């Protein structure tokens, strides 16, 4: 019991110090919960519309018609293991380096961004970056890789 009381007292001290350090550091560096909201940044850029989401059926129709370019936002390791047939890879974390693979695509061409599936947000973030770079016709296939594979739709792997 004495051991437990001692542990609680020490734990309380550690939690208080951690709270103080965490709040001071993140507010001083404007990181995490004190980061400027991306929403407010976007709000200043009223010329950028929000990309809309499409279902698997819509993605499949656009894939069949060949009227859209699929862009995979996942890491290149995941992309090489398997991706939607014909998709290009622009990993979100390397966007500035890898966006050159889209250089041959006209700015008004339909682009569909996707990532792992509904458990990731990379497709949303990628689509916003694409629209900021002037691509006017961007959609998000939020069901992503997982929905595509579950439906046994065409995929390919990097050799």
């Amino acid at each position: 019991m004495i051991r437990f009381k001692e542990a609680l007292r020490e734990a309380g001290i550690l939690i208080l110090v951690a709270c103080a350090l965490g709040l001071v550091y993140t507010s001083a560096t404007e990181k995490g919960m004190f980061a400027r909201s991306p929403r407010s940044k976007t709000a200043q850029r009223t010329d950028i519309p929000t990309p809309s989401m499409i279902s698997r059926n819509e993605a499949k129709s656009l894939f069949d018609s060949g009227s859209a370019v699929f862009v995979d936002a996942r890491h290149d390791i995941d992309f090489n293991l398997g991706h939607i047939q014909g998709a290009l890879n622009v990993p979100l974390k390397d966007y500035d380096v890898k966006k050159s693979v889209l250089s041959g695509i006209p700015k008004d061409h339909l682009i569909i961004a996707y990532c792992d599936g509904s458990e990731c947000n990379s497709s949303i973030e990628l689509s916003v970056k694409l629209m900021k770079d002037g691509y006017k016709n961007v959609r998000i296939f939020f069901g992503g890789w997982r929905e595509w594979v579950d439906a046994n739709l065409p995929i390919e792997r990097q050799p």
Partner: protein
Amino acid sequence: MKNLLDNPYLALLVRVFVGLLFVVSSLEKIVDPAAFAQSIANYKMVPEWLVSLAATILPWLELLCGFSVLFGALTRGSSFLLSAMLVVFTLAVIVALARGLDISCGCFTQDPTAGKIGWLKILQNATLIVLTLFLYFSNSESFTLLQLLQKSNPGSDQPH
């Protein structure tokens, strides 16, 4: 069992291992709390405001507990907190697995390519829980900061 809990060398070994592990793993989270917040949010278990708060405080708590265990100061409290955190993290991983979430752990690195959650992660956490509980129940005070201070100032604990 009591011999093991009293063994100063075993306690030192566990303290160095657990301490360094949590110090190192906390640094990446401190530098990039947004990435850590995303890792927590991926579990879809806590509201957004709690995600931000956890991403702000937990890395610092891990860092403090890591240093605390490493130097043998406030060891009882830090090992208690580490055990509690590990139990919560492990439950989160189990629930996420049961719900079929295919996500990165976000435990010791924020690199999404470092590996998805799985039973191996639960085994790792279970091992760490055993080690932190060992520190909690250990009676060894050898090789600690307190002992070092007492050795360098042997008269300090004598009555005046």
